[in-house]
């Protein structure tokens, strides 16, 4: 298949169309504007609906409504816009409605700036909105993966009946890279048992998240928790690089993982035994793998473009079995491969010094 050069945002938008997206609502914000721009032209061509809503809150509630009607839906935004959507994301999770939500993270807190950042890890992974819910969170690290995981996100949203987050950032959103427009065979998910399709010939249905009956909410919560438990068993995705002989393992996701990987390759050329574990799903987190690695190595180094968020999950999984170092740069600045190389170089050098003592 031929490669095409695409911007990250465009890859998300076209992949969504290929995956059968039929309803998009959103509100503009940099650095994800090419997604609505592209879909405003493209979606009507395939019989879909594009709406630029009056606000993020309106957009995500339109998503709720359209998903309840059984069609494939998506919204996209960037950090402060996602904050506005959180109430309805909690509702979507509670109502078990499939939806794809793209967050091309920018620098925060507050209005921050438009540079790339990874400071919404907690927001995406730990809930963000209210209540005991989780989201399936994919963190692609290339334009190719934005394409592939957008398609997978639609499939998983329907299969698992859940909102799915694509957590990208300003760097992979804005850059162009060659993409193979792979198309897996799409599965057909029967939504006739729950979707609101007009009550002809059947009793009427209500999709609601207000559960006032005695014990009703607790029962529903246990059902959701059971679902999340199954994700931990079946949906974890990650990639490893050079970890077989490594004494130090870097853990990084998304664009930080890419930048770390090129630094790691350079360090390996100098004979340093260092590898990379890259979680692709941030929830469910590859905690079991980290636990196993922790028994064999001396040190993890977590690299994130925030002040330290995923590092907490790494520490939980490591559970004291090895050291966990952290190199983080808060959002809003452009972090180069040289910066990461220098940091990793120092942190591995320290180890060599300690070994001599």
């Amino acid at each position, binding site marked *: 298949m031929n490669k095409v*050069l695409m911007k990250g945002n465009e890859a998300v938008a076209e992949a969504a169309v290929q995956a059968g997206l039929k309803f998009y609502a959103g509100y503009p914000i940099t650095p994800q504007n090419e997604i609505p721009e592209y879909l405003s032209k493209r979606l009507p061509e395939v019989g879909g609906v594009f709406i630029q809503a009056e606000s993020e809150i309106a957009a995500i509630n339109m998503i709720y409504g359209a998903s309840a009607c059984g069609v494939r839906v998506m919204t996209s935004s960037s950090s402060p816009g996602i904050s506005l959507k959180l109430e309805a994301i909690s509702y979507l999770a509670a109502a078990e409605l499939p939806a794809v939500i793209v967050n091309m993270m920018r620098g925060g807190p507050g209005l921050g700036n438009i540079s790339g950042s990874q400071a919404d890890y907690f927001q995406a992974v730990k809930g963000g909105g209210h209540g005991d819910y989780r989201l399936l969170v994919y963190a692609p690290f290339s334009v190719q993966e934005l394409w592939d995981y957008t398609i997978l996100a639609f499939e998983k949203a329907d299969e698992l009946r859940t909102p799915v987050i694509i957590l990208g950032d300003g*760097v992979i959103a804005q850059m162009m*890279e*060659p993409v193979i427009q792979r198309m897996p065979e799409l599965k057909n998910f029967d939504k006739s048992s729950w979707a609101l399709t007009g009550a002809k010939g059947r009793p009427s249905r209500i999709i609601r998240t207000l559960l006032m009956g005695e014990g009703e909410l607790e029962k529903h919560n246990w059902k959701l928790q059971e679902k999340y438990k199954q994700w931990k068993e079946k949906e974890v995705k990650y990639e490893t690089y050079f970890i077989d002989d490594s004494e130090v393992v870097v853990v990084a996701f998304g664009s930080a993982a890419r930048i770390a990987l090129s630094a790691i390759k350079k360090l390996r050329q100098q004979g340093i035994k260092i590898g990379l574990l890259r979680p692709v799903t941030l929830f469910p987190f590859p905690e079991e793998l980290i636990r196993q690695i922790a028994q064999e190595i001396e040190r993890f180094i977590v690299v994130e473009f925030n002040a330290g968020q995923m590092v907490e999950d790494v520490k939980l999984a490591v559970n004291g079995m090895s050291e966990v170092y952290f190199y983080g740069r808060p959002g809003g600045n*452009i972090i180069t491969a040289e910066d990461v190389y220098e940091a990793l170089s120092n942190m591995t050098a320290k180890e060599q010094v300690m070994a001599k003592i």
Partner: protein
Amino acid sequence: MEKRIIIAGSGGQGILFLGKVIAHAAMKQNKEVTWFPSYGAEIRGGTANCMVVVSDELIGSPIVKIADYLIVLNQASYNKFMSRVTPNGYLIYDASLIKNSHGRTDINIYPVEASKEASLIANPKLANMILLGSFIKLSKLIEIDKAIETIEEIIPAKRKEMIEINKKLILRGFSLFEN
């Protein structure tokens, strides 16, 4: 081998397009490539830039701090990015618009009368394509044929005239330097 390019000038000089043609041509040669624009809060009259990285393997960062090649189209960009060329790197600039005053002696400097050459063929605003041709000759990073093919593919067929003009400009820039 990873090669990093910064292309800079002001809005409207075809900075992003110049980068796109390099990226496309590199892709045609089965290279890994990234193209990254300066985006968002740009200042009117300020600099626009893009960064292209070409490599044989997965590229770590699309963001270029130190460049192997700097292509500049205006004085402000020249001043801003000059110090970011690696020793023995290349500076290619539009000598019709820029005065080389920095005096770095540790890099290869190639002045190109790009605006002047472009005006002889079509229009001084198309200096970017002259510089592209010169860049291809000097860097040997992409093949001239792939750049020409790219032009034929990414400019819409209905603007056939522009395709021909761009090709002419690239070839002219290419011919300005000896092998």
